[in-house]
């Protein structure tokens, strides 16, 4: 078979056999009747047997899993044979439905009631739906959806991965991720970076590689080659024998000592504690959606205060940048958003929801202010999706009213980058969200595989907007330029991190897993060299040329296998 080219989103070179992720289960018809010759008793017995088999499989997996994962698997096993799930399903079977359809609907009811509780319980709804899918797969005699189980290492091939797949993905067994869909900002890319796995996305045609075929995956080159040759194997061996990555010391700096604080992107207190343990110098992006998602109503003041405080407490004496609620039709909240918008990415989202539904943002700011008051963290606040200087000013006024001293804006919309001088005049800092800035600059939906090549933060047009933002921040600040950070996936790419610093970015915020590689590569260049490499990237014709020119100037990438 010929080599398949996609977009590399996680560096590294490995050889391994392919395992395909099973297709998602089609839901059973809600009026599916008993199979030929069945009775209510045989149908109920068939369901009981399938549920017991699923519980056994989950317990077997728990036996070999890490302690935290084992707890989840064990309680999921209990859900499979749950007495109320069985009773409610049996009622539906007695009413004439088949086992698949009955358990589907009975589990749905439990999942929705958990979702309506919000927070931790809402997350458990995913477990209920996972158990349901496993039982239905068992009843149908097809492989369970999700990451396939295996005792031996393999290359996972899928259409795209979902955030929930991270929990069941064992990086000791899955040695590389290859997807036919997705793009550089897709969930697969985010998972690959978080786990440090070689990954290639938007690799059209990988779905046709037969199960078990050995492939060579080169995550830096974006290449997947079935039936690897001797050179491929040698290349994978060289990668396996790479120098170990130095652990992050807790202080990001260039070779000449110029400090570049490396911060973490976090979505809650657990993340924050983990990031602090990895040495993060603060939080550059606290996504506050964790407090709101899956809720029918706005969480109360005390609940919000407690949730934010949990994050602040992990970073005493350090900076925590809180992004206010970023909801929209793509990340809907029933009390805030209109899900019928034809173009969610261009709709009422981020800061814009404050005009449509005033009050939610002011109440969130009040909760952040109270949480900040009782903590030793240095709390900064920023609004997502700011497009004009007036919006930035209004947001700053809301922050002042809430008693928050340092307010800033996310630069995600090209208009904010182009007119950064005016936008930043009214606020204290900017943080560039490269994922959205790329999507809007290139007019390419982040989630669409066919547009993956457009949706690349190495696009020189995107880099020029980052440069424009830094220039605007310098104009707005006068003698002391206003700080501009980056908190998108771009900051987690060690080569691109050097370019960003060369463009004048002062802090980088990323998934905690990326801190060590980014720190190691930054430490290999001085400020002058970073500026030269940034100039090469800006002058390149396209993203591939930019990436190639910069990588060629950073020999440390190869010796560390990045």
């Amino acid at each position: 078979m010929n080599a398949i080219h996609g977009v590399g989103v996680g560096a590294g070179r490995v050889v391994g056999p392919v395992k395909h992720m099973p297709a998602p289960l089609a839901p059973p018809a809600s009026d599916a009747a008993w199979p030929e010759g069945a009775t209510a008793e045989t149908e109920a017995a068939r369901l009981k047997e399938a549920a017991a088999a699923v519980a056994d499989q989950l317990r077997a997996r728990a036996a070999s899993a890490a302690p935290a994962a084992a707890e989840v698997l064990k309680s999921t096993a209990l859900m499979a044979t749950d007495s109320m799930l069985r009773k409610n399903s049996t009622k539906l079977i007695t009413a004439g439905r088949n086992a698949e359809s009955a358990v589907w609907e009975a589990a749905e009811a439990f999942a929705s009631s958990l979702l309506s509780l919000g927070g931790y319980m809402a997350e458990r709804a995913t477990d209920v739906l996972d158990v349901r899918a496993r039982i239905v797969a068992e009843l149908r005699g097809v492989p369970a959806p999700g990451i396939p189980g295996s005792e031996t290492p393999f290359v996972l091939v899928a259409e795209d991965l979902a955030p929930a797949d991270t929990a069941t993905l064992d990086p000791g067994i899955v040695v590389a991720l290859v997807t036919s869909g997705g793009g550089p900002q897709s969930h697969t890319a985010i998972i690959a970076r978080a786990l440090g796995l070689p990954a290639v996305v938007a690799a059209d045609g990988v779905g046709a590689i037969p199960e078990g075929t050995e492939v060579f995956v080169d995550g830096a080159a974006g290449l997947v080659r079935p039936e690897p040759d001797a050179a491929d194997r040698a290349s994978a061996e060289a990668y396996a024998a790479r120098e170990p990555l130095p652990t992050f010391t807790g202080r990001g700096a260039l070779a000449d000592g110029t400090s570049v604080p490396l911060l973490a992107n976090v979505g809650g207190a657990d993340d924050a504690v983990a990031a602090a343990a990895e040495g993060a110098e603060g939080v550059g992006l606290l996504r506050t959606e964790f407090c709101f998602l899956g809720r029918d109503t706005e969480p109360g003041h005390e609940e919000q205060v407690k949730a934010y405080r949990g994050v602040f407490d992990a970073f005493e004496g350090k900076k925590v940048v809180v992004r206010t609620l970023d909801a929209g039709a793509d990340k809907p909240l029933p009390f805030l958003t209109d899900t019928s918008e034809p173009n969610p990415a261009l709709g009422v989202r981020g800061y814009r929801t404050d005009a449509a539904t005033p009050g939610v943002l002011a109440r969130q700011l009040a909760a952040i202010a109270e949480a900040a008051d009782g903590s030793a963290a240095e709390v900064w606040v920023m609004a997502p999706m700011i497009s004009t200087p007036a919006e930035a000013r209004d947001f700053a006024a809301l922050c002042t009213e809430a008693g928050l001293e340092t307010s800033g804006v996310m630069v995600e919309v090209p208009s904010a980058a182009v007119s950064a001088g005016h936008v930043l005049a009214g606020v204290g800092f900017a943080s560039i969200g490269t994922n959205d800035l790329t999507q809007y600059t290139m007019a390419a939906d982040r989630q669409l595989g066919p547009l993956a090549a457009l949706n690349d933060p190495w696009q020189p047009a995107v880099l020029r907007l980052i440069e424009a933002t830094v220039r605007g921040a310098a104009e707005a600040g006068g003698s002391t330029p206003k700080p501009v950070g980056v908190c998108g996936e771009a900051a987690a790419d060690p080569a691109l991190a050097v370019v960003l610093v060369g463009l004048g970015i002062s802090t980088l915020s990323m998934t905690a897993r990326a801190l060590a590689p980014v720190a190691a590569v930054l430490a290999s260049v001085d400020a002058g060299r970073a500026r030269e490499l940034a100039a090469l990237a800006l002058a390149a014709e396209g993203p591939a040329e930019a990436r190639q020119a910069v990588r060629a100037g950073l020999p440390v990438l190869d010796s560390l296998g990045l």
Partner: protein
Amino acid sequence: MAERIATIASRVGLHARPAAIFAEAAAEQPVEVTIALEGEPVEDALDASSILSLMGLGAEHGARVVLRAEGDGADAALDALVAILETDHDAE
């Protein structure tokens, strides 16, 4: 009918591991046990051996719940289950 009131000792509430431990113990009892938040009507009580019902109950740390059972061994069963609820399983 035997009845006991217990205060949830686990800091995460009756969720996750504490709920799993309790549901398994309830399933092992010789009698059927129900659970409800204190003050809820008897007819809304849930099957104590169902982890899905327990999670939906929303019993947080410090919440008071009522356990009920009937028949031989009901008192001993409830005493055993109260002891489990009043242990902080996160502290172990």
